């Protein structure tokens, strides 16, 4: 992969140059938290953020999206907004990993999702390295580094950014500001490796994921699920903020008095009781304990069977957002613990 160096003093120039590739969005402060938003001015960008409230999935799977309009003559696909060029500046490695997992579901296989695909084509991703806080466990989930899914990736090396060029578009961005970049010197490589080593030791949360699927099978009837089911409020926050929760609901709306309207999809979660209800009112996940177990099971066990790794990337958002302090790492470590969780 092409690697370059961007002196930090040149970052402002580079940010100005990449506007030609699309509207620039980056993390900005929202009270004590951060959110990806359109930048009014470059100085609003907070590249030192820990995590955004919502992950970048909102740009690729919007909370609400019109899929079709219909009239008496049939359904017409909606394309509004799909061609908008954006540049997401400052996406952390775990969140890029989250997009790569969404890619496997939405792009691979016999029925690629054309809405997602169009947005993924038109939204450029510039990644940036980060310092883990007390709720990060991406290293345990093997998502603390990414080798694809971004156009450019910046590693903070003190006075410069070590820059990985991931795509031809990324290369165009670099070339459009070629004079700002410098070649990488041997001491930069040494510095990168030292940095990587130091980062690995900063994580405060850890969970061993090897053979976790087997443990999930063995603890399927564990009492821990009842306990979590009693605690969980079914607010759905953990799914909404999760970079790899992608379930959606589809609704048709009718224009009053006309045979016309639209079909929209919107975020949904397996934690709502309506999720697995079928005709006749039967519900395959009757209890909240069934539903919260399902969420854990699908992310940590089901994805391993289907895609060879858990879908959780260890971003810590669900830990921060849960109003009753359900903590994913605590749950996994209790399941893993030596004692059977009876």
């Amino acid at each position, binding site marked *: 992969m092409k690697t370059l160096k961007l002196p930090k003093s040149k970052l402002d120039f580079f940010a100005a140059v990449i*506007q*030609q*590739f*699309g*509207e620039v969005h980056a993390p900005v402060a929202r009270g004590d938290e951060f959110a990806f938003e*359109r*930048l*009014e*001015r*470059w100085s609003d960008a907070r590249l030192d953020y820990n995590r955004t409230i919502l992950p970048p999935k909102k740009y690729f799977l919007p909370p609400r999206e019109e*899929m*079709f309009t*219909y*009239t*008496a003559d*049939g*359904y017409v*696909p*909606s394309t509004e907004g*799909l*061609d908008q*060029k954006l540049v997401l500046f400052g996406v952390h490695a775990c969140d890029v990993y989250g997009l790569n997992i969404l890619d496997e*579901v*939405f792009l691979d*296989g*016999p*029925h*690629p*999702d*054309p809405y997602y*695909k*169009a947005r993924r*084509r*038109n939204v450029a991703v510039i990644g940036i390295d980060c310092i883990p806080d007390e709720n990060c466990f991406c290293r345990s989930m093997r998502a603390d580094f990414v080798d694809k899914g971004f156009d450019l990736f910046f590693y903070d090396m003190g006075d410069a950014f070590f820059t990985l060029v991931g795509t031809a578009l990324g290369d165009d961005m670099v070339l459009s500001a070629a004079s700002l970049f410098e070649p990488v010197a041997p001491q930069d490589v040494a510095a990168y490796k030292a940095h990587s080593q130091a980062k690995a030791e900063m994580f405060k949360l850890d969970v061993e994921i090897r053979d976790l699927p087997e443990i999930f099978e063995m603890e399927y009837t564990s009492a821990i699920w009842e306990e979590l089911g009693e605690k969980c409020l079914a607010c759905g926050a953990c799914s909404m903020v999760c970079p790899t929760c992608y*379930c*959606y*609901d*589809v*609704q*048709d709306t*009718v224009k009053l008095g006309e*045979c016309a*309207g639209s*079909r929209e999809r919107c975020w*949904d979660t*397996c934690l709502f009781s309506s*999720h*697995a*209800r*079928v*005709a*006749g009112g039967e519900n*395959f996940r009757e209890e909240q304990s*069934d539903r919260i177990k*399902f969420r854990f*099971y699908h992310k940590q066990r*089901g*994805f391993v*069977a*289907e895609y060879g790794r858990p879908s959780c990337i260890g971003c810590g958002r669900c830990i921060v957002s849960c109003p009753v302090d359900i903590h994913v790492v605590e749950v996994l470590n209790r399941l893993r613990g030596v004692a059977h969780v009876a």
Partner: protein
Amino acid sequence: MSPNVLAPAPQPAIEAVRLGNPYAPHNARIVGVQRMVEDNHLFTFRFVDPEIARSFSHRPGQFIMLSIPGAGEAPISISSSPTRPHVLELCVRRAGRVTDALYRMRVNDLVGIRGPYGNGFPVEEMVGGDVLMAAGGLGMAPLRSLLWYTLDNRSQFGKLTLMYGGRNPESMLYRNEMSSLVDRPDIHTLLGVDADPSGTWKYHVCRLADLFDFADIDPRTTHAAVCGPPIVYRFILQRLLKLGFSKDRILMSLERHMKCGVGKCGHCSIGYKYTCIHGPIFTYWDAINLPEMI
């Protein structure tokens, strides 16, 4: 920061939303409605676009997504056999928003259909062996596509046995069609009702599972395809296992809530499988290895 975008580039990605969109329903016209039992009609459709009408093909056991403008979308099994491609028949029970709206429509009205989806029955593996088809109640809707597939490709299969049971004669789907099979020598057809209050029933009056007493089935050479409500699975599976069926020769069709049909929306999950792409046909072995299956 205001974007200063280069000249607009051609957008093949947007074209893929307009053309080849897997969620786009194709216009289809209702060409026939036939009442079979109370709140369960057989609807026949023809695609408006001749190219789609020509290219649409399916496997027995697959389903489509039926759209009624304004009401929404619902998964419905294809009840006709791919061996009779000129018709697309759906046997629809009136259950809620979409199906209610369909029941208000008339011949010539337009609906949307996309698909087919799901794995369907593993007919390639079944070829050369015997087939037992067992359905209870509305389970005949998905099973009928396999029934006619095996009959229309009769020479490819060994012995065929059909067991179909319902509460009473009035609740039997395709009643005349099923009766007409009883005299066919190339399939052993066993029809049973739990009760016959009207006294019009010429066949067995017994539980569906009791029809096994009249059948001659070799579990070593037979695939069993079972469709019906959960109660049917319970009793039929017991009988099949007692007969010595291997768990991966028992095939069942399962229903879950579905919003996309193509493995994206997450609604149809069972354990970690999606009914819409890994199913709706599962072996009994799959079933007992996935928590939450039945």
